[in-house]
């Protein structure tokens, strides 16, 4: 057995114990694929900087111990639900929790168990295989044509591990039919003292002229790790405005893949990551401009302090014929400690004509002139640093797509920055 795989007997036992439902066939096919390939290793170019050994080790222990019962922190969830006006889908340790969910029967929003068969498998990502092989339950969300609502749908992904390490899978497929307009919140929290690994896979398909505002917010505990894939397909004149915010977690890996399939589509996606001692956060984004004209623009910002590492890899591929593409990428990093490490890599591949592409990355410290300016107005050095650090993050928070959450996120960011400054672990 190689280091990058999981014990076959434990995998087989776990999959066999899952219910014999509409996913059974796909699960077995995914399992076969996963057994062959295992987890990605750092030899894989896309995983060069992110070593999953600890996650694999945790998964192994989780499969070999009996699975811990879910014990979400109900009070905290209720409190969160009270503070955000949304329809809630709560997924606890990989299963829909109906007691805590609220949105299930809204007009024009159809939520059903995910059905897949083996031909829906795509040979692209070993973590997607793992996800499907061990998936207890998947969800399918369909937003009816022309349906538009101001009230967001909030996916609360809550993981808890009390007495044993837990491994959980989340899979949600979202289809926005033509002209549908919808606002999503994907909110990750964790509870319990043991380790947890969450592997999520979310697909969004926007049919012609549909529009999605999508905010992902992750404020996990430090003994939780997650890998998450979001695949977005944009048909003609459809739009997504996305922002992903990562404040917590030991190891976080986000794969965001956007396929521009129709002319006039627009993908605006931003990200903010804050990492301190012992954290590792990796954002891989990829946009495929398959037709033009169409627009993509991303801005990721990171704030790092202590021994930690962040990776940003932004790839844009402008395929042959995608004339009139406008693709912009930016990544800015603030390093508050010499121990923090950042690997920032923009990648542009252009095979079309008349394209407008630009990228810029910066890595730096706080601006000394700005610090002096604030101090000359009476703010002490620490306060001036905090103010500038927060400002660096604020520009992402303030353009994130669900404005009514700006305060909540701003406060969480501020709280995290305070911890960062004082070195107190989360």
């Amino acid at each position, binding site marked *: 057995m190689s280091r990058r795989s999981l014990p076959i007997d434990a995998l087989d036992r776990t999959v066999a114990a899952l219910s014999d439902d509409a996913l059974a066939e796909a699960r077995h096919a995914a399992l076969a694929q996963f057994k062959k390939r295992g987890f990605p290793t750092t030899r894989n170019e896309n995983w060069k900087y992110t070593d999953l050994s600890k996650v694999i080790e945790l998964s192994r222990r989780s499969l070999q111990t009996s699975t811990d019962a879910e014990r979400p922190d109900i009070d905290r969830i209720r409190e969160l639900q009270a503070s955000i006006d949304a329809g809630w889908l709560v997924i606890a340790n990989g299963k829909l929790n109906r007691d805590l969910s609220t949105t299930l029967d809204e007009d024009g929003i159809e939520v059903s168990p995910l059905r897949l068969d083996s031909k829906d498998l795509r040979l692209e990502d070993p973590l997607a295989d793992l996800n499907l092989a061990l998936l207890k339950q998947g969800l399918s969300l369909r937003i009816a044509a022309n349906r538009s609502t101001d009230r967001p749908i909030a996916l609360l992904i809550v993981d808890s591990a009390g007495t044993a390490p837990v491994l959980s899978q989340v899979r949600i497929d979202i289809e926005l039919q033509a002209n549908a307009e919808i606002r999503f919140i994907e909110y990750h929290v964790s509870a319990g003292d043991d380790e947890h690994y969450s592997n999520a896979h979310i697909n969004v398909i926007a049919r012609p002229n549909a529009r999605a505002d999508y905010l992902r917010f992750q404020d996990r505990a430090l003994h939780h790790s997650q890998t998450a894939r979001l695949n977005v397909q944009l048909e003609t004149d459809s739009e997504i405005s996305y922002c992903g915010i990562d404040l917590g977690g030991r190891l976080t890996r986000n794969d965001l893949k956007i396929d521009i399939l129709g002319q006039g589509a627009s993908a605006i996606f931003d990200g903010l990551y804050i990492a301190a001692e012992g954290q590792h956060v990796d954002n891989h984004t990829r946009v495929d401009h398959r037709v033009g004209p169409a627009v993509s623009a991303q801005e990721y910002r990171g704030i790092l302090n202590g021994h930690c590492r962040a990776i940003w890899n932004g790839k844009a591929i402008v395929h042959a014929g995608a004339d009139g593409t406008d693709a912009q990428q930016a990544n800015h990093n603030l390093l508050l400690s010499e121990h923090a490490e950042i690997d920032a890599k923009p990648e542009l591949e252009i095979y079309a004509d008349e394209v407008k592409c630009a990228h810029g990355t910066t890595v730096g410290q706080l601006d000394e002139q700005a610090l002096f300016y604030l101090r000359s107005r009476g703010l002490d050095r620490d306060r001036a640093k905090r*103010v500038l650090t927060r400002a660096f993050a604020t*520009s992402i928070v303030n353009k994130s797509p669900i404005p009514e959450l700006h305060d909540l996120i701003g406060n969480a960011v501020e709280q995290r920055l305070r911890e960062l400054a004082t070195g107190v672990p989360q």
Partner: protein
Amino acid sequence: MLEIKNLKARIGDADILNGVSLSVNAGEVHAIMGPNGSGKSTLAQVIAGHADYEVTEGTVSYNGHDLLALEPEERAREGIFLGFQYPVEIPGVNNAYLLKAAVNAKREHQGLEEIDAFEFLKLAREKMAVLGMDPKFLNRGVNEGFSGGEKKRNEILQMAMLEPSLAILDETDSGLDIDALKAVAGGVNALRDPERAIVLVTHYQRLLDYVEPDFVHVLSEGRIARSGDKSLALELEEKGYEWVREAANA
């Protein structure tokens, strides 16, 4: 109030101030003039406490205390205000936030309570009206995307809110059209008070038509080459800076 004696300062290996002596008393308005590169901004930044400048000799005392021993923020709280020649743009920091933080930092130092939020807004709006600033500027990032004139007015707004004992305005008049110049001059004149001192750094006579100085000094090659009353500014305008330099070296 401010007593500078034989001040020498350098940045890196470059000696910039070569023995400046200057005495500023409460109630006075001083103008410091001089050609580009003569060290005017350096003098202003050293007084405000910029760490890039190394003081190699001399003393600066403020109200009888060693000013050079204080951190920049302590100087500000003690009532020193520097209007920057190049105000810094700070995107993401709200202008109102900075104004309020600055006012409260000083009030805390004075043992006063924080300013009431309503009172603060009212005061800020009043001052802005006098300066001809749109109240919308309160909610913008500090100097973010401001035009040259807007930045200078914003400096004056900060000054007006902070009511410093010693205001040093570094070329607050440069690059302003006549309306902006009048607004800035109005802001400065409003601050004139027997308890306060104002130092205007400028290289034009123009501002001095609106704010009449008690003393005029000419800085040249890091030294005060000449001091006089306001007629010195007129003489300079007429004869140019070469005249001072020649006279000083003679």
